[in-house]
Structure formats: structure tokens, C-alpha cells
């Protein structure tokens, strides 16, 4: 009896020790991500700071690193973002409203839903190939901002739809029922009740989709191809380049100075991205309706 107790106690000690050991392993794994992110940020900031200047923002690309800037890429990104938002927001929100508020439960609806979740997993470069064939060649849009924006819209559509649906679903049933009881039609309920209540969540989704679009290089590379753009686009049919493409251009040059420029460009890109994400998080925390309210 006493002996059994001792064995039990020894095993208990052992199990506890094993527990702490595994805990340390878990903690170490978590630290890898944290440390990885820190090292990445430090590496980029230390590489980029010496090259951060107004010249970088306002100059055109150049073969001389000390003269080179990313003005056309910046304007190109603004063009691309504006057009992408113009296409993807109405279509994405429209699809989400349809699926949540109108869609009958049938095979077609199920197909659309499965399809959207699969589209979210299609590699971005494949969207680039779609754009290169469909928009650039068949619709003869050439390598224009418009072709890029249409491609990018299709790419971020699943993100916008999924986020909007989630947000629409979170609007309490009682809101809708109150409006229906007053005699509102389907569309009046959507326009007057559901969309206003779901707006913060939809906005968050749109911002997340746009921040994905800002950083995407692969599909734009397949579409715009040429990388040495020395003019800024003035209409949707102009050729263009975007920030991540300019950064890629600089990274892939062997000279060390261009690596510095690339790092500086990345700092700019990350500042834009992080502030967009901060806005999204702020909106989410500040305005989101909760269904239990």
C-alpha cells in the first residue's frame, strides 16, 4: 500500500515534469513566429531607413539607385485600388446579400457557396493567367490598369463576400422581423435595416480585401509584364506598375543599393498595409453589432 503510493507519487512527478517540458516546447514554437516577425521587421527597417526619402516617393524609376523612386508605382497602386474597389465592393456585397437574404436552399445555392470557398484557395498567379487570357487578350484590354483591376477584383471577391456574409448574418433576426412587420419589402429591409447594421463588418472585409490586393504581385506581374514604367497612368487603358512589382524589380537586381531601395519600398508598403489593418480592427471593435444585443 505504502509502496504503491510511492510509485504513484513518482509517476506523478514524472508526468508533471513531462508537462512542463512539453509546455516549454509549445512556448518555443510560439516564440518562433513572434521572433520571426520581429527579425523580419528589423531586417527590413534597418535595410530601408537609409533609402527612405522624398526622392524615393516622388522620383521615377532609374538605373541609378540614388535617383530612383517609385512615383509611377504609387500612382499605379492608387489607380488599381480605386478601380478594384469600384468593381469588387458592389458585386461582393451584392452576392453576400443575395446568399444571406434571398437565396433559396437549393443545389444552385450550394454550388455557389462551395465555389466561393474553392475560389478563395486558387493561387493568385492562376488569377493572373485568367486575366492575361480573358481581359488582356480576348477582351483586348491590353496590359491596362483596367485589365489589372478586373483581375484583382475577381481575386479579392471571395474575401469580400465571406466577410460581408458573416457580418450580414450577425444582424439579429428581430431587426428584420420588425421591419417586415411594418410592411417593408425584401429590398427595403435589406437597404434600410440589414445593410446599415452590417456596414462596419462589410467595411472591415472590404479593407482586408483591399490590403490583400495592395500586396499582390504575382497576378499583376503576369498581366503587366514589363516592369520599367516611366510614366504615370492617366486613364484606365494606360499601362501601369504597382508598388510590390517595383519592389520585386529592385529585389531581383544584384546590386546592393537596389536591395536597400527595395527595403525602403517595403517599409512604405508595410506602413500603408498596417494602417489599413489598424483601421479595420478599429472599425470592427468600435461599431460591430453583436447578435446578442
Amino acid at each position: 500500500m505504502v509502496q504503491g503510493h510511492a510509485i504513484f507519487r513518482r509517476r506523478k512527478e514524472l508526468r508533471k515534469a513531462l508537462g512542463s517540458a512539453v509546455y516549454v516546447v509549445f512556448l518555443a514554437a510560439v516564440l518562433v513566429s513572434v521572433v520571426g516577425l520581429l527579425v523580419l521587421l528589423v531586417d527590413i527597417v534597418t535595410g530601408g531607413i537609409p533609402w527612405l526619402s522624398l526622392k524615393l516617393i516622388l522620383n521615377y524609376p532609374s538605373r541609378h539607385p540614388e535617383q530612383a523612386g517609385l512615383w509611377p508605382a504609387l500612382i499605379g497602386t492608387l489607380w488599381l485600388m480605386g478601380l478594384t474597389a469600384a468593381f469588387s465592393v458592389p458585386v461582393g456585397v451584392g452576392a453576400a446579400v443575395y446568399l444571406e437574404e434571398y437565396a433559396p436552399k437549393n443545389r444552385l445555392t450550394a454550388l455557389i457557396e462551395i465555389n466561393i470557398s474553392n475560389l478563395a484557395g486558387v493561387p493568385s498567379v492562376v488569377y493572373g493567367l485568367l486575366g492575361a487570357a480573358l481581359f488582356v487578350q480576348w477582351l483586348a484590354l491590353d496590359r491596362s490598369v483596367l485589365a489589372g483591376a478586373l483581375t484583382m477584383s475577381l481575386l479579392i471577391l471571395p474575401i469580400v463576400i465571406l466577410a460581408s456574409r458573416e457580418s450580414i448574418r450577425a444582424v439579429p433576426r428581430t431587426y428584420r422581423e420588425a421591419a417586415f412587420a411594418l410592411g417593408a419589402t425584401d429590398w427595403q429591409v435589406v437597404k434600410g435595416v440589414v445593410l446599415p447594421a452590417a456596414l462596419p463588418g462589410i467595411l472591415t472585409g472590404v479593407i482586408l480585401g483591399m490590403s490583400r490586393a495592395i500586396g499582390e504581385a504575382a497576378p499583376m506581374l503576369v498581366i503587366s509584364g514589363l516592369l520599367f514604367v516611366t510614366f504615370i497612368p492617366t486613364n484606365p487603358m494606360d499601362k501601369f506598375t504597382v508598388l510590390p512589382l517595383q519592389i520585386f524589380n529592385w529585389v531581383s537586381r544584384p546590386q546592393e543599393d537596389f536591395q536597400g531601395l527595395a527595403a525602403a519600398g517595403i517599409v512604405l508598403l508595410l506602413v500603408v498595409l498596417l494602417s489599413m489593418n489598424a483601421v479595420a480592427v478599429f472599425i470592427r471593435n468600435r461599431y460591430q453589432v453583436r447578435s446578442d444585443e
Partner: protein
Amino acid sequence: MRAGTAEMGPRKPSRRIGEAVIKWLLFSCALVSILTTVGIVVSLSVQAWGFFVEVSPFEFLTGTRWSPILKPRSYGALPLVAGTLLVTGVAALVAMPIGLATATFLSEYAPDRVRRVLKPILEILAGIPTVVYGYFALTFVTPLIQDVLFPDMLVFNALSAGIVMGLMIVPMVSTLSEDAMLAVPRSLREAAYALGATRVEVSLRIVIPAALSGIVAAFIIGLSRAIGETMLVTIAAGATPKLTFNALESIQTMTAYIVQVALGEAPRGSAEFNAIFAVGSLLFVMTLCMNLLGHWVVRRWRLRY
């Protein structure tokens, strides 16, 4: 009842038409997603057709030499597939253990305060553009590995691209796995605790087995993401298609080949240009199968409580 409200009568038909129009407009928005899939399949296969009339699919799928520009030309895609799988394999070795451990830590150990710090960090990692990861692999990880482990390793190599890609997909693997673990009911954990199990025993023997289908799906979906990743491998892994399983060598992935041709001067309609659509089709089919498999695993093997 409708007929009874006479004064509303005249407005009704137009309103009803308006409602129907809006419904159809919204439906067509939803239909865009189907059209996108159709567009992908059609554009890939039409363009790839131009390639397959010149090169037999058999040669494409089984050939061991990829040399679309240098003569003698040869269009065997296996080196590109091997390069892709090599980088993905390295990424898996990094992302699976770290992602699973992170998920377990977040779901079973971390107090709320720690979670609130860790989750945004993972979200930031997931939101960083892949060009940035490419820069990091090329300018930091590769020199580090050369200094510490393998001085002879080439500047462009599968190893550092794979390691950084692993870091990149950790957030995805851990978030999906954590969701699966959070879905395991409290009562299972409490039953184990009541029997005297320690926290580690509950995590490893109760929660992880119960959430296994979700975890496996997270791995599969994470790897499919790695297979389709483009900029990181284009920047850091090289442009030399090679049938090798040595991660220290320079290789070329399927995605990196697509980029290389898109950057180059290959004339539209030539076999070497159309080859990117053949490679793209292969990529699309591979990732689609993995994503479907992931969703299937969740549906098929989920334990219901």
C-alpha cells in the same frame, strides 16, 4: 388580404417589378463567382490546348527535362513539380509542428491577455505581402544559413525559401487548427481533468485527437497555399529547373516558371508562351484537389458531439 388595401394598389405592380429586378441583379452578383471558375477553366484549357497540340500531354507529365528555350527543347514538367514539392516539403516541416504547437498553446494554455497579443501578431504575419517574404529569405535567411550551416549553399536555394514559406503559412495552419480545437466540447476536457489528467495529457490525448480532422485539413489547405505561392519562390529559390531533392540547390517551381515567361519576351502563341497555361492548369488542378480533399476530410471525419 392584398386586394383589400385599395389605395396601395396602383403602386404595387411597379414595386413588385422593382423588387424582382433587384433580386435578379443580386443573383447575378452571386453568379460572378461561378463565371470566375468557368473563366479560369476555359482560359486555362483553351490556351493550354495550343500547347498540347505541339507537345504531348504524356511528355509534359512524365518528362524529366524542362528546357523550353534552350535547344534541344524539352517540355517535361517533372523538374518544376519536383521543385515545387521540395520547397513545399521544407515549408511543411516548419509550418506543421510550429502551427500545431501554436494552436495548442492558444487554445489550451494561453490566458486571454496572451491571446490578445498573439492573435494580432499572427494576423500581421498572415497579411505581409509575399514579395516581402522573398526579400527576407534572400537578404537575411540565405546569408544566415550560409554563415552558420552550409557555407557552400547557393544564393538561390530551396531551403531558405521553404523555411520562410513555412513561417508564412504558420498563421494559416494555426488559425484553422485552433478553430478545430475550440470546437472540441468542454465536457471532454473536464472529464479528463476529473480523472486526474494533466494539462499536457488533456491537450495531446484528448483535444488533438478529437480535433484531428480539422488539424489535418489545416495542414492540407496550408500546403496547397504553399504550392501556389509565387513571389517568394521566384525571388529566393532560383530559376533553374532541376529534378533534385537536395534543398541546398537552386530549383524552379511551377509558379516561378510562369513569372519568368511573363517577364520575358516569349511571343504570344508560341509553345513556350502557351506552356505557362499548361503549367498553370497543372497548378490549378493540384491546389483544387488539395482544397477539396481538405474540405472533404473535415466533413467526412468530423466527430460530432
